């Protein structure tokens, strides 16, 4: 909840020091040549020391690395929320709600499959807005209906309640998971863009922030549209459309999902993203896999975030850029460790997994 005035200067000062301790490109190059246990040892001498030591007795190998990375990520993002106040808190927390969504999905899946709550707890990344008490209560409930009651008072309650009826009918988690994701994306641009009585800023840090969030929504829409087009499943594209982006509107999506090539052309012709994604789109036309395209989308999003932080270093954009950089670090280390574990070559890891 936002209390008091926004404090981007203070938070940015703290974020800058955190950003300085992120792994550099040379560190990744070193990691790529190491095995999982060497990576864990390397992490012990860095920022991740406390988490690796704390979890070392319970986990080993790549699992230790992954859980240590998740716990460290959660710690850093919790700090961000602790430091932020006022509007900055609102803007940061709405982005970090993706971890709430992730945790809620994990808990609901745990209830659905009757998994031991201890195991479910291990998989949570407590980096979102939901406090520990709520999460602990969620871990104690036995039914999905009770879990929804526990989150009453959050933005997820209404959409989950609505989706619960469909869940009751079908017995599948899809409506609940989609409801959570939709709630997250649709709240991203809440009261910063196109809201009643407010005009969308055209320049300045908030305009860039909106541009970044629009890119995130557009990229999510593009991924989902391409996945739907590829799968050939009889699904209503409108049900998976997230409002707020500039790449598609609902009618575009309905029209394009049936024609894969036209969909790729539509993305390529977009002024904002066409050039950034041209290479990936070219490969996408020929390749069977969407993975390379998703990789390109991730890289483009990170590029956006880096641009944001350099243009407006004392705004929410810089905080957002740090969030993405930290996530990228965690993803890269995890990708290297998992890649080494399964015997992928250095070049494969560098080309297909790591985003530098």
């Amino acid at each position, binding site marked *: 909840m936002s209390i008091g005035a926004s404090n981007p200067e203070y938070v940015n000062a703290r974020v800058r020091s955190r950003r300085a301790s992120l792994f550099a490109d040379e560190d990744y190059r070193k990691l790529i040549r190491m095995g999982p246990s060497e990576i864990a040892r390397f992490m012990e001498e860095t920022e991740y020391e406390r988490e690796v030591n704390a979890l070392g007795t319970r986990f080993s190998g790549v699992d230790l690395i992954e859980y240590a990375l998740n716990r460290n990520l959660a710690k850093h993002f919790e700090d961000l929320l602790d430091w932020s106040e006022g509007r900055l808190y609102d803007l940061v927390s709405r982005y970090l709600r993706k971890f709430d969504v992730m945790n809620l999905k994990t808990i609901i899946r745990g209830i659905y499959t009757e998994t031991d709550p201890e195991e479910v707890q291990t998989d949570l990344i407590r980096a979102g807005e939901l406090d520990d008490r709520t999460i602990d209560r969620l871990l104690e409930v036995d039914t999905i209906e009770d879990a929804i009651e526990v989150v009453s008072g959050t933005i997820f309650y209404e959409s989950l309640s609505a989706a619960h009826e469909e869940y009751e009918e079908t017995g599948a988690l899809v409506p609940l*998971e989609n409801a959570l994701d939709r709630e997250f994306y649709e709240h991203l641009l809440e009261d910063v863009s196109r809201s009643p009585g407010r005009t969308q800023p055209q320049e300045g840090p908030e305009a860039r922030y909106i541009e970044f969030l629009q890119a995130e929504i557009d990229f999510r829409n593009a991924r989902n549209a391409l996945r739907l087009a590829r799968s050939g499943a009889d699904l209503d594209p409108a049900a998976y459309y997230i409002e707020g982006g500039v790449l598609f509107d609902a009618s575009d999506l309905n029209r394009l999902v049936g024609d894969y090539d036209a969909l790729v052309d539509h993305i390529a012709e977009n002024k904002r993203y066409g050039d950034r994604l041209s290479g990936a789109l070219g490969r996408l036309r020929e390749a069977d896999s969407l993975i390379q395209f998703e990789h390109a989308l991730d890289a483009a999003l990170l590029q956006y975030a880096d641009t944001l932080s350099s243009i407006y270093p004392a705004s929410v954009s810089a905080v957002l850029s740090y969030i993405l950089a930290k996530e990228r670090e965690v993803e890269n280390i995890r990708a290297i460790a998992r890649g080494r574990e399964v015997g992928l070559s250095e070049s494969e890891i560098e080309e297909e997994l790591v985003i530098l």
Partner: protein
Amino acid sequence: MAKDVKPTRKNLMEIEDRIELSERGHGTLEKKRDGLIMEFMDILDKAQDVRGDLADDYDQAQRKINMARAMEGDVAVRGAAAALQEHPEITTESKNIMGVVVPQIESSRVSKDLSERGYGIMGTSARIDEAAEAYEDLLESIILAAEVETAMKKMLREIETTKRRVNALEFKLLPDLYDSQEYIEQKLEEQEREETFRLKKIKEKKEQEEKEAREAEADEDDIEIDEADMEPPATGGVPGN
């Protein structure tokens, strides 16, 4: 075996019947064995293809899931997998290939579209889709391989059994029957010869006895004549003296 059988005509007829039946069975089994081998070769080709596909699908599935675990994290991949409780269903029927009952496995709900995989589409990625799809393909291949390889094993077992039967007929049963047949025939011939000889001997003996009887009779007649010649004539004297 040949010595165990009683050398009677009835047994010979029985053995001849068994030989006829065994020879017919041997021919039929030989044809069955050859037919099974031909069917087996077809199945073997198919099994080799299926095995190859299975290995490729397994490599592909492992690669996809490794990529998904690397990029999305183990937690996300496990979470997506846990979002589905429904299991694929398998029904087995059977079909008959030259008397061998082999399974025919029908699977349902193995390949799923995006909406049927249980996890939400909005918050997941193509990496998870492709890993799920690769594992669905792998499962299809495993089911096909199970069907083909079970058929192959059953055919192989049947070929072995048929081959053993053919060999048993060819190298054991039929030679024994032929030996028994030959033994009985020889014995019967021998008995026949003995019988003929015996009859001949009886006949000779009989003839000898008859001859002797005739001679004895002839001798008796001669004595009677001599005695009559030596006796004096009764009253009235002998006419002619």
